[in-house]
């Protein structure tokens, strides 16, 4: 299917539109809620919650015999919530560290879930078919009422997020301060964790219990790279999550029954990689550029200090020009002296008196003094003469 075809189908194919809408809404909700999980270092709590939800799905089906999404989602939410309580309880009441507690809860609950699912599957009714789509998710199974559930509950969660914005922000960045202001931080914590549970269980049908945590973490981690503001981060994570959801669901639904969860997760991971590389300010690419600039400046400053030292030793006016080879020898024969001289010339701190011979300009002398001389000229000259950086120099 070509891009144009896909776009056409998105607009006019009923099933595809349903699926894309559901996965997109899910991505928005998960991305926005995930910001708080990532900032509070609870990325792996999401993993534990989503795995812990599995027995809830199985039990809900076993007890009610219903495959209706709201029933299963409710079971999943209860189980995920109980799993979270277990993690908190273990950490509080024993010396087991948090990572072990998370590992135990996620794997043991998942094991119990598999026991229930296999038990259900071996019973002689046909109604259980499809429960295993909750492992890796199958967006193609989304019905309109499922999408309405995601949109409705998700909108409710986002509304609560907006209503308690200030409280959640306090909880995330300065819990003690919030407590001192008189906010009930424990209750706020429970509310935010409950919202996280809700966001995760909404995605189980689409993305599956195994990978849902990635849809919570990845958009938030990507958004974090682009901004230092919480509100911008939450909105951006919602957008990125939504994009990953829509594209992932479409690729999965049109690509021959591939499980949706992995596709969406790969989309979200790609967004993370791109963000890590090219985001302005925090991105690794801009870090490289910054490092390159700093290195170039430091090198130029070293050459400038050498020129200054030569000028002091020869004649203060700076009319005396020195060969490039001398300058190169002064800092250990390092390459790049000519480039550094170019940089200095650009700023008017040095000039090429005749080809291959350079002198410091009066402006350069001033600059060299501000650079290195905290404790008297003689001292400074001596330090500079060694080609090093003066201690306490204002680099």
């Amino acid at each position, binding site marked *: 299917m070509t891009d144009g075809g896909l776009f056409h189908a998105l607009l006019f194919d009923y099933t595809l539109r349903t699926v894309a809408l559901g996965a997109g809404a899910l991505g928005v909700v998960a991305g926005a809620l995930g910001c708080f999980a990532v900032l509070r270092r609870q990325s792996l709590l999401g993993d534990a919650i989503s795995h812990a939800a599995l027995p809830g799905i199985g039990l809900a089906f076993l007890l009610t015999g219903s495959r209706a999404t709201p029933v299963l989602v409710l079971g999943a939410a209860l189980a995920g919530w109980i799993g979270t309580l277990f993690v908190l309880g273990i950490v509080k009441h024993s010396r087991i560290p948090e990572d072990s507690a998370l590992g135990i809860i996620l794997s043991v609950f998942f094991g119990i879930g598999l026991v229930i699912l296999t038990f259900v599957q071996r019973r002689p009714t046909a109604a259980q078919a499809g429960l295993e789509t909750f492992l*890796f998710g199958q967006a193609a199974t989304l019905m309109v009422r499922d999408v309405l559930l995601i949109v409705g509950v998700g909108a409710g969660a986002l509304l609560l997020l907006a209503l308690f914005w200030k409280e959640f922000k306090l909880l995330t960045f300065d819990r003690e301060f919030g407590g001192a202001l008189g906010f009930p931080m424990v209750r706020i914590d429970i509310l935010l964790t409950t919202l996280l549970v809700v966001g995760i269980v909404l995605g189980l049908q689409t993305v599956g219990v*195994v990978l849902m945590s990635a849809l919570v973490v990845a958009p938030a981690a990507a958004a974090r790279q682009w901004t230092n503001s919480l509100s911008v981060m939450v909105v951006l994570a919602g957008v990125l999550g939504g994009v990953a959801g829509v594209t992932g669901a479409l690729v999965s639904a049109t690509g021959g029954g591939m499980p949706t969860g992995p596709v969406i997760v790969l989309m979200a991971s790609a967004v993370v990689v791109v963000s890590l590389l090219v985001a302005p300010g925090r991105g690794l690419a801009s870090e490289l550029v910054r490092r390159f600039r700093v290195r170039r400046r430091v090198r130029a400053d070293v050459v400038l200090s050498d020129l200054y030292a030569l000028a002091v030793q020869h004649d203060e006016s700076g009319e005396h020009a020195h060969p490039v080879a001398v300058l190169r020898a002064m800092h250990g024969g390092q390459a790049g002296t000519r480039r550094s001289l170019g940089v200095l010339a650009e700023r008017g701190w040095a000039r090429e008196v005749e080809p291959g011979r350079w002198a410091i300009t009066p402006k350069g002398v001033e600059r060299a003094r501000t650079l290195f001389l905290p404790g008297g000229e003689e001292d400074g000259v001596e330090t500079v003469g060694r080609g090093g950086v003066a201690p306490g120099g204002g680099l």
Partner: protein
Amino acid sequence: MSTLDVEIQLLAVVVAVACALPGVFLVLRRLALMSDAISHSILLGIVLAFFWVQDLAHPFLVLAATATGVLTVALVEALHRTRRVKEDAAIALVFPALFSMAVLLIARYAGDVHLDVDAVLLGEIAFSPFRRLEVAGMDLGPRSLWLMAVILVLNIVALAVFWKELKVSTFDAGLAAAMGFSPALIHYGFMGLVSVTAVGAFDAVGSILVVALMIAPPAAAWLLTDRLPVMVVLSGALAALSAVAGFWAARAIDASIAGSMAAMAGVVFLAALLFAPDRGVVAGVRRRARQRLDFARTMLMVHLLNHEGSARARVENQMDHLQEHLRWSPEFARRVVRRAERQGLLERRPGGRLRLTPLGREEARHRMVR
């Protein structure tokens, strides 16, 4: 019990013990969730190697999967070192991506070989006895049992040989570095061991339940002892117990054996959490209750001594007045008095008056000066 049952249980026990041994150090070194990451991403190694050699029984698969496990650890650390994401987020970003690739590759290209998505999560411990190891036409037993036995021995040998290094670097990383043990070498060597174990166990119990077997028994053992060698042995024993109990529980309701083993490991951990002699929740509750009573008794002694012989003694040193003066509930006051009486520290006089015995007076004075 049929031979089949015996073989499955034997395999279950070997897998569980092999997982629990490195698990001890995973728990102590706060690396529990690295096992989660490793056990997921080894699937990618298995799948890619399978495409290469086209044989699920090829030893190259184990090698490639182990390498992927170590690579995962390196990737998580590299991502963390960029300081753009925290460590927990780094774990939560790396393994889902690798695992997703593997699942998609299986779904797309390997649908008709014995590598299906269910097996990835459930393992196939119930079927593994059907794949036999035959040498020169002789049946030597299930193939995976041999593989896991080798891995178990490897674990035991590695722990024995590098015991000192692992121990020191776990409890005092600075000292270990000062003694000249390379932290990186120990860390990656150990993670390699975890990876091999996860690869071997993967076949039997699937990628997520490996975590239960690696973390739950050592965590339970840690609640029961403070000594490392005891913890290691105890972890192995609890793991074996979970395996056998899990097998029979699964048999009883005809459900997944691997899932049931993980559930039993959870039950064992919960039992240790609640009932461990010193560190259990129940022991803690009882200890606090006793301390509360002891403190209240001492307070009562001091109260009685304080008012003894004074004008108000008739009012103050009266059973019914304790609630008012010490703000105790009647029930609690009765318990404290009964306790002090039983210990021979006070006696009840007619009319509800309380009087210190000589022993009680001695005790109250002693407490006051201390």
